[in-house]
């Protein structure tokens, strides 16, 4: 068999792209895929954090039902509220699981393309087209689902609070009950809804900016093939494009990319913090609304522990401070990373190893944001769960259960349960967010289709 033409070690091969460059390109492309998919995760994460938190909060409420009741809680109302909130949680969980399945199936489908058509045996048990189509439709309405989850979830809480908080409410009159419920429902539903509507464009703008970056910054544009392999012994070298950029041009592109990435990351962080503000506004609104309502009834009930109320307000405010601090840190990181320190450039216009390190550093900045975001969600989840739990304590106190040492025990017990549930829900939300990021670090469709086409062609030819 005829041997192929010989060439010296390390020479760029036929296409002009050496193996190191190919590997670097794949690293960068993979990071870009993560970038591209970031925006798809945000809404799902928010629903997870919110719904899972609510579900955990409702556990001690179920315990309440078993405790001696002051006779003010209509059982049907409680069941309805619990069912509503759990419904939201289950729907969110199903959405997340189905999304995971959809992504997994898409990836497997791409992998199977390499092996050729599926056999009937392999195809057995797969309902891929139907499931993928269903998920596509569901994901297409993701924003609507998120908004619905906010509305239903926030409506469920006041439905629980009103009967407990309001002494001597005229339960016999549905209209009176609705009026009282409206005092709590309107601010709690309207605020998150309005806040979400305000935050959504920020998130979308930041995500679009990053998507544009992904489209416009093709890493292989920097990997310019040499005009001719001067050392080669007969291997054909691809002609250099007429607009081959030199090291200075590459450096300029790197600087521009860094600046734009830093801007995009800052916007994303700001959007996340605004989302945290919305989450924090919910318990704050409840606390203030409760305070105003009680004031209208003649002041706080006797024996009311003021410290608890301060905590109820202080927790979400503290979360806001932490969120703002996180943004300041993200800004600092972005500013630091946006200052290029090395001048790239290598033989034939190809990037040097220093340039490749630069590229990795740029996308490392995005990784900073990726790691930070779940923590912000976790903080918001803890703050929301804790402050809502504290408000539950207010409900306990007001309803008359706080009597004597046994009442104090109930308060401590419930507070502990809610605190543990809030922490657990936040940890679950963070774990889910991290898991989602890993699961979504898969190829984007357009590029992967091209790669699959290349693989198909390769295996059919060779």
């Amino acid at each position, binding site marked *: 068999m005829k041997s192929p033409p010989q060439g010296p*070690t390390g020479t760029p091969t036929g296409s002009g792209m050496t193996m190191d460059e190919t590997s670097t390109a794949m690293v960068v492309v993979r990071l870009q895929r993560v970038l591209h998919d970031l925006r798809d995760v945000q809404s799902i994460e928010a629903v997870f954090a919110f719904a899972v938190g609510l579900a955990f909060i409702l556990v001690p409420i179920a315990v309440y039902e078993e405790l001696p009741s002051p006779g003010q809680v209509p059982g049907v109302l409680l069941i309805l509220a619990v069912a509503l909130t759990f419904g939201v949680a289950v729907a969110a969980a199903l959405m997340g699981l189905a999304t995971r399945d959809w992504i997994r199936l898409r990836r497997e489908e791409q992998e199977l393309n390499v092996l050729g058509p599926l056999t009937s045996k392999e195809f057995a048990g797969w309902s891929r087209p139907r499931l993928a189509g269903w998920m596509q439709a569901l994901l297409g309405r993701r924003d609507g689902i998120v908004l619905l989850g906010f509305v239903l979830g926030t409506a469920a809480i006041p439905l629980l609070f009103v009967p407990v908080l309001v002494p001597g409410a005229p339960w016999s009159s549905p209209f009176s009950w609705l009026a009282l419920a409206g005092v709590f429902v309107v601010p709690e539903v309207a605020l998150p809804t309005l806040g979400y509507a305000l935050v959504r464009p920020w998130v979308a703008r930041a995500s679009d900016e990053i998507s544009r970056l992904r489209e416009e910054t093709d890493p292989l544009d920097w990997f310019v093939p040499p005009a001719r392999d001067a050392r080669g012994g007969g291997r054909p070298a691809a002609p250099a494009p007429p607009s081959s950029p030199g090291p200075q041009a590459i450096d300029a592109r790197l600087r521009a990319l860094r600046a734009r990435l830093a801007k995009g990351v800052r916007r994303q962080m700001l959007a996340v913090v605004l989302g945290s503000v919305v989450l924090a506004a919910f318990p704050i609104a409840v606390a203030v609304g409760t305070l105003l309502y009680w004031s209208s009834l003649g002041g706080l009930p006797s024996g009311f522990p003021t410290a608890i109320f301060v905590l109820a307000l202080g927790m979400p405010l503290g979360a806001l401070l932490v969120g703002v601090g996180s943004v300041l840190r993200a800004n600092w990181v972005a500013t630091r990373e946006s200052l290029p320190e090395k001048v790239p450039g290598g033989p034939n216009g190809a990037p040097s190893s220093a340039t490749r390190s630069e590229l990795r550093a740029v996308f490392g900045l995005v990784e900073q944001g990726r790691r930070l975001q779940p923590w912000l969600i976790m903080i918001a989840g803890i703050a929301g769960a804790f402050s809502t739990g504290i408000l539950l304590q207010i409900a306990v106190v007001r309803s008359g259960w706080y009597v004597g040492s046994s009442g104090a025990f109930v308060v401590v017990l419930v507070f502990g349960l809610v605190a543990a549930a809030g922490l657990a829900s936040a940890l679950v939300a963070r774990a889910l967010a991290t898991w989602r990021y890993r699961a979504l670090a898969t190829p984007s469709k357009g590029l992967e289709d091209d*790669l699959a*086409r*290349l693989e198909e*062609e390769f295996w059919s030819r060779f």
Partner: protein
Amino acid sequence: MTTPATGARPPRPDLYVVLRLLDTLARNSNRSSRAALQRGAGINYTLFVRYLELLEARDLVRSTNPSGEVELTAKGYDALQFLQQGLLEVLGGRADSLPRHREDPR
């Protein structure tokens, strides 16, 4: 020279692994020891053997006796060039020039 296909084809023949194997051979004057080739490909030995069997079955490489070295064939060199050019086109945003694959039967 060619080892017959054993049916132990890797579950997912990764083109980048194939590319690394072929490129490692090309960089070493089209001939390499198995150990050096495995290191160049960056995969574990079990997987390396399966990839090697796949490439031999497709006549892209061949094992030489008695040294046990692996040699790049002319067809393997063509495959390497095809892969490099194809990857450059796909990753360089010029994928439209690639031939279309057949329709997915599903």
